[in-house]
């Protein structure tokens, strides 16, 4: 009998998605904004349930529930809760509010499976589940032409990315006789090299994951889709979805290809350097806030890849911990920045950076929050972004990627320029009109959560560091080379 308790939180979130659709269909008082609150509460409950469940490897290691997957689940569910809360104020105005939250829930479940995936098949299904839900959500504002245009672009590029990844899966399957990471590892240690066919499979899988994390050269979709999609969805995509890609990437590289780190490390270094340089250069030129944040997100993916490159060294613990930690704090600060962008866009109807002009006179608290998020993204102490980046670069340094860390450090200084340009609009420029910008209670609460998290993690990062350590230990235990007979897949007749 298989112990299915580790999957209770996944089932809870699926049930939550169905529940909100039903509540919406039953026309539970729309004005109460209850669907958003229900979703947020359910997400928080799922975090608690997740940590109470036992560690397990289900179906010959295809799905792995361990502190590593739980740490990432926590990130996705926290982002889901904040985004659902922030969407609640729009609830009375949007059609199909129930479906909106349901799709968000299902996308989150897909990401949770991505973090737990112990085989390429589950990885593919998890990534597709989240991507397909997000395709629908990107085009959710049907009357907005930009929204449907973004959906078409996301659909075409996303489908190509996932088809490439699937072809990679089929190659690996043919080579290893299964897509479980244990079997791939078995092939690697069996032949004692890196067969050319495996390179092909690896390249295809990397293309799929590169699309998910929006790393150069798989970043083309990000600016257009981020700009066109409803802003709450952009917030979710730029954080939860990106971090989900990293959760899968780390487990795939360290477990399945753990025996040949010197082979994949150069690829990661190249992706990282390209993302940092190109993301930064293009971000400087942007006039639209969401596009600027999209390019800054590409740069941030590059920073995360610095730590992944560092993970190729013998002791990968620091790198895994750093990615978990940065994933969490990046989630809060980036969602916060997008929520402020949404308030401004809703009120002024413009997504340009100049629309933020004189925000400190029109809405002082919101201006202060935006300043915090921007400084945190730029990595100014004592905010969360600084601590997180410190750990990422430390992990890269530990792994011997000195040049890459140097590039990242220089890029961080350049990045300050475009973050400060936005801050300049907010604080120095005078507004065109002095009318106060109204902020709904729900959005205020969501922004407040992000502000508190950004400050708290920066001042007292210890709990998050410990969470990262636990995740790293779990992944390390899973990835430790074992004799062929002890592989979970070998138990099958």
């Amino acid at each position, binding site marked *: 009998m298989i112990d299915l308790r580790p999957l209770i939180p996944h089932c809870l979130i699926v049930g939550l998605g169905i529940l909100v659709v039903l509540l919406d269909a039953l026309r539970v008082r729309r004005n109460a904004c209850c669907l958003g609150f229900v979703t947020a509460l359910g997400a928080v409950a799922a975090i608690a349930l997740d940590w109470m469940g036992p560690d397990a490897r289900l179906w010959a290691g295809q799905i792995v529930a361990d502190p590593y997957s739980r740490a990432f689940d926590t990130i996705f569910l926290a982002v889901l809760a904040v985004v659902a809360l922030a969407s609640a104020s729009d609830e009375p105005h949007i059609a199909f509010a129930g479906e909106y939250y349901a799709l968000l829930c299902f996308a989150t479940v897909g990401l949770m499976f991505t973090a737990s995936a112990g085989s390429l*098949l589950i990885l593919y299904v998890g990534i597709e589940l989240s991507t397909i839900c997000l395709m629908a959500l990107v085009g959710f504002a049907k009357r907005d032409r930009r929204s449907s*245009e973004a959906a078409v672009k996301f659909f*075409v590029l996303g489908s190509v990315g996932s088809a490439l990844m699937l*072809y990679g*899966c*089929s190659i690996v*399957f043919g080579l290893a006789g299964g897509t479980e990471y244990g079997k791939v590892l078995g092939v690697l240690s069996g032949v004692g090299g890196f067969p050319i066919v495996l390179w092909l499979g690896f390249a295809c899988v990397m293309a799929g994951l590169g699309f998910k994390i929006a790393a150069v050269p798989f970043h083309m979709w990000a600016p*257009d889709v981020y700009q066109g999609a409803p802003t709450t969805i952009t917030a979710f995509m730029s954080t939860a979805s990106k971090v989900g890609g990293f959760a899968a990437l780390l487990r795939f590289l360290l477990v399945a290809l753990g025996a040949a780190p010197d082979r994949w490390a150069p690829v990661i270094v190249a992706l990282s350097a390209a993302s940092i340089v190109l993301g930064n250069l293009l971000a400087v030129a942007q006039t639209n806030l969401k596009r600027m944040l999209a390019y800054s997100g590409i740069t941030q993916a590059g920073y995360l890849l610095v730590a992944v490159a560092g993970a190729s060294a013998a002791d990968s613990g620091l790198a895994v911990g750093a990615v978990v930690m940065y994933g969490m704090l990046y989630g809060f600060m980036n969602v916060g920045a997008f929520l402020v962008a949404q308030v401004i866009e809703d009120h002024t109807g413009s997504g340009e950076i100049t629309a933020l002009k004189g925000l400190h006179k029109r809405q002082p608290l919101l201006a202060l929050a935006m300043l915090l998020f921007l400084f945190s993204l730029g990595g100014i102490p004592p905010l969360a972004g600084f601590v997180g980046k410190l750990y990422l670069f430390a992990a890269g340094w530990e792994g011997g990627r000195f040049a890459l860390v140097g590039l990242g450090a220089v890029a961080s200084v350049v990045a300050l320029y475009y973050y400060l340009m936005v801050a300049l609009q907010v604080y120095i420029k005078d507004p065109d009109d002095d009318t106060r910008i109204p902020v709904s209670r729900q959005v205020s609460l969501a922004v407040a959560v992000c502000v508190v998290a950004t400050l708290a993690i920066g001042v007292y990062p210890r709990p998050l560091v410990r969470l990262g350590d636990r995740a790293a230990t779990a992944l390390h235990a899973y990835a430790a080379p074992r004799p062929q007979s002890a592989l979970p897949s070998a138990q099958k007749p």
Partner: protein
Amino acid sequence: MDPITATHYIGLSAILFAIGAVGVGIKRNPIVIFMCIELMLNAANLALVAMGKHLGSISGQMMAIFVMAVAAAEVAIGLGIIVSIFRSRETIDIDEVNLLKL
């Protein structure tokens, strides 16, 4: 005449995948792009089933069933998006869908 082996199937699947990938790159009509994507997915399916047969393992076919389910979901979403873009602009040519700067 040699019998048809797994290699032939895998060669065919590689050709189909390449046709699909090139089609996505050069076609301008989303519905045709869409068909090319389906071709890529089914090329992967063919490879999976052929290799499963070759290895004497059932999991290749099992994975192909997963992929069909995923592809069906993608079709539903993709057609929905195309319909919505047609309603808002009366055209679905991908080159005319350019409100967002590239």
